[in-house]
């Protein structure tokens, strides 16, 4: 086992130091997230982890930092228990560590801790929240976490049995500690009958229909920063798990391609239709998570179908775009919730007048959801569509149809949500009479900036660097447009 990995303990030292202090220090958290980003980069440069880990870890660190800064005022104003910010920090830190972990042991350990912290967060929200289900945390634990454990232990069992069966000289825990790329060389095969068992946990984690029902419950009752992490980062872990599964094990790929195609299309239609009729802002976003992950499932299905490098870039950009816009929008809804005490969006108007900076971030997220160049959402849709059109056959044709459905549905979802920013501030907004911190506004804005920043990961892939010309030309324009939208939205009619 690689000793460099013990460097990952440093951020946890910062975490425990911040727990010991009575008053929470921003500097400590800044150090915590900066150190984990630097360590991830260092591990990548010394080839201890691979590009996929780095590409997912750095953006999640970026959004987690701002979510963490956002949480203080949120927790105080909403009268959450004082340990909520620490829980949020541990939640994000364990998830980032799960992304960085280069072997099955690290992944499973970190992921399981993250699941438990997630369960605590959901149950805190469940006790605190006025709206939402009363069984959300139990469903989360029994459906999402249990299915994950089921899958991951199936995978471990298969790996161990195969390795031990091949040679008696190897201990059963050996496959757990060697890096993924070494493990892939062993050629461990998943038999077809075990394949549904192996993928069900990750599919549940992504919230794909028909294993989606825990998601709107859990995401809508959790405190908003936790919802942001659950939706933006944790569902991305589902995709990450499937990606590792495909990478390490040999199996019948056709099964996976068709399953993802079918479930992805169903999720897009179901999630899209449900989210268009919600009046609870967080439920809307939760259902749109289902639709968004449906689209990611399509990208994954395409990648598994062809294994093209651009397919992988597309998949990663799709995951990151979802991470970017969903965290931003949950933080925005959190602000609404903080001001009013509830989060019904069907009558809430004029958010842009009250919090212009956060609304600018939210608009960037909506641009990404709609697909405006050069946001991450646009890049993902563009790359996938281009890949699909350039290799048309029966499977990619179906994927193309589902992607077009998603493009239309995402526009509908975005526009349903966008109403919150426009118009006169409604009288509801004075109801809670609570304040919004300046740091919260800036956090929401900078999280919104992630929708543009995350596109840069595709520069890693050869053959796509010309896209940067496009990126440089259009990013000032999209910022200008966001500014103009805010101008129009803030105008008194």
């Amino acid at each position: 086992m690689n000793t460099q990995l013990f460097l990952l303990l440093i951020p946890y030292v910062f975490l425990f130091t911040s727990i010991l202090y009575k008053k929470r220090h921003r500097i400590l958290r800044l150090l915590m997230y900066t150190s984990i980003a630097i360590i991830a980069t260092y591990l990548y440069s010394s080839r201890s982890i691979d590009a996929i880990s780095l590409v997912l870890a750095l953006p999640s660190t970026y959004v987690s930092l701002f979510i963490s800064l956002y949480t203080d005022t949120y927790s105080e104003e909403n009268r959450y228990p004082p340990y909520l910010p620490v829980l949020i920090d541990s939640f994000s830190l364990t998830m980032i560590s799960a992304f960085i972990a280069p072997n099955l042991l690290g992944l499973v350990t970190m992921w399981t801790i993250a699941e438990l912290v997630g369960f605590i967060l959901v149950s805190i929200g469940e006790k605190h929240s006025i709206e939402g289900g009363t069984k959300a945390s139990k469903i989360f634990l029994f459906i999402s976490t249990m299915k994950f454990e089921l899958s991951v232990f199936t995978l471990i069992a298969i790996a161990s049995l195969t390795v031990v069966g091949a040679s008696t000289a190897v201990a059963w825990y050996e496959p757990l500690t060697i890096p993924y790329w070494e493990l892939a060389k062993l050629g461990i095969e998943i038999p077809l009958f075990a394949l549904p068992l192996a993928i069900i946990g990750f599919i549940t984690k992504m919230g794909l229909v028909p294993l989606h029902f825990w998601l709107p419950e859990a995401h809508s009752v959790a405190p908003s920063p936790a919802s942001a992490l659950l939706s933006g980062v944790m569902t991305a872990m589902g995709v990450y798990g499937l990606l590792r599964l495909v990478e390490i094990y040999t199996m019948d790929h056709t099964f996976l391609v068709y399953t993802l195609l079918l479930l992805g299309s169903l999720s897009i239609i179901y999630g899209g239709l449900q989210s268009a009729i919600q009046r609870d802002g967080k439920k809307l976003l939760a259902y749109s998570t289902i639709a968004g992950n449906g689209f990611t499932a399509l990208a994954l299905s395409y990648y598994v179908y062809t294994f093209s490098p651009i397919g992988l870039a597309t998949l990663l950009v799709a995951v990151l775009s979802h991470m970017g816009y969903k965290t931003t929008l949950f933080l925005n809804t959190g602000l609404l919730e903080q001001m009013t005490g509830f989060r019904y969006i069907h009558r809430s108007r004029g958010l842009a007048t009250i919090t212009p900076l956060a609304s600018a971030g939210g608009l960037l997220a909506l641009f990404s959801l709609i697909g405006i160049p050069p946001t991450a959402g646009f890049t993902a849709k563009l790359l996938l569509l281009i890949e699909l059109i350039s290799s048309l056959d029966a499977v990619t044709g179906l994927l193309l149809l589902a992607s077009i459905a998603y493009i239309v549905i995402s526009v509908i979802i975005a526009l349903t949500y966008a109403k919150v920013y426009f118009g006169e501030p409604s009288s509801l907004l004075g109801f809670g009479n609570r304040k919004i911190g300046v740091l919260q506004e800036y956090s929401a804005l900078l999280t919104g900036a992630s929708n543009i920043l995350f596109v840069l990961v595709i520069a890693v892939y050869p053959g796509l660097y010309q896209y940067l010309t496009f990126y440089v030309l259009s990013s000032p324009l999209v910022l200008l447009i966001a500014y103009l939208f805010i101008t129009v939205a803030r105008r008194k009619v």
Partner: protein
Amino acid sequence: MEAFRYIYYLVLVALATIGSHIVDKDPRVSKVLRALAFISPIVLVYLTGIRLDLISAPFLLLAIVCSIAISLHTEGYLRILFGKVSPLQSIVDLTLLFIILFFTTQRVGEFIIFWIIVELMGSLLVILERGIRNFGVAIKYLIVCVSAGDISLFTLLAIIAVKIGFGNAIVLEFSRLPSLGIELDPFLTFLILIGFTAKLGQIPLHFWLPDTYTETPSPGTAIFSALMSKMAVFAILRIYQFFHVDTMTYIAMLLVQGILTAIYGALTATMHSDLKRIMSYSSMGHYGVMTIILSLIPLNPDLFTKLVLLYALYHGFVKAQIFTNIATIELLTNTRDIYRIGYLGTMVPRIYGSSIVAFLSLIGVPPALGFYAKVLLLVSIFALLPAYPVIALAGLISVGLFSVFSLVYSMKYLSVYTSSYKSKPRRTPAAITGLQVWSEIALAASTIAITPLAIALGINSFIDPIIIGFYVLGVASLVLVFTLKTRVVGKEARIWLGGVEV
């Protein structure tokens, strides 16, 4: 060279932004800055590395002239409505600038960026004046028109990407596209065209158009109708120029859509009483005619390409003028119901002259460009009759029907200035600013002045001399009538109401 051009674009955006932000403090400097931003792409054309050809030059000319007029008109319009102009003016000006820049793009990536940015600015124009109350319309526009357009743009990029790879496709110059020799099958031809015909409001993706055009504030509608629709025409022309489309699909699809839309648009236009709705449906009908001409391009590429350019110029100038005029009428009368407006010619004589020119241009009377465009169109389709009897006959019938109905709704439009109203006026009309009057006069003058330039396209050597004769006669008679009206015929002391002295 490319970096230089992008810096130049940024300078233009900065000029327009600064110009529209200081419009309240220093209107004169603002006007100079904005005009500079709009005109310079054509003045500095070779300095900045912008290359023009037969297809982009007319569109650029149209965009620049209309932009200046619409921008100035909007300034007056907003000043009367809101007093403070700058926040909204910046949106209108930047939209206009992006449209101009769209016509100067040279690479596939730029083309896509500017197209989508202009579409977004369009949705801003929809909610410009009424805010959240127009949100439903903006949603319809974005979902039907913009998503369809995006699908076509992505298809365009994908088709090139298959040939040379994604990264290269984005920075590919248009001028190098024909050398790739890309063939499109029927399905791809359909996909690549559907977004652009949706932008032109062609059946079956037409239903966003009347709502969007009617609910958008009138200066915005002028931009939609005069300029944004021309972007779609430009795109289809480029696609035909650079790809080997499946000719059968191309002709069949565009012809059917065009014929249906031309007849539907013209018929519906005659049945409405809302001034703006009439003109929106009329725009739709005109787009139908343009689609018919586009569909005929494979039969005689040179002739019909020039013809569609001519028709686009004609429609652009006329609709820019008519919608700015409607903006003025809205301010004057506070209603758009034509049965409640009348005698505007007597009440506001300053805009009467330019409206008459717009009317003449709409129905196609010399010396306006409409006459030349319609005559040439009918003659050119007629010439196809021996070789392609079915297509030519269908085209002739629909264009003929369209022309007849355009006469009907144009008369309705003019009745706003001439006939009497049924109700009593509630208030005296607001005084319109000189900016509005002069920009309308400028647009009216350009519909007449553009005709010699259009003749220089050299479309039909037989008809051109006759047209020149008509043009000279028309200009002479127009001058004569205006002189007679202003100098010789005295002003009526009282309003004349159908034979009874008031």
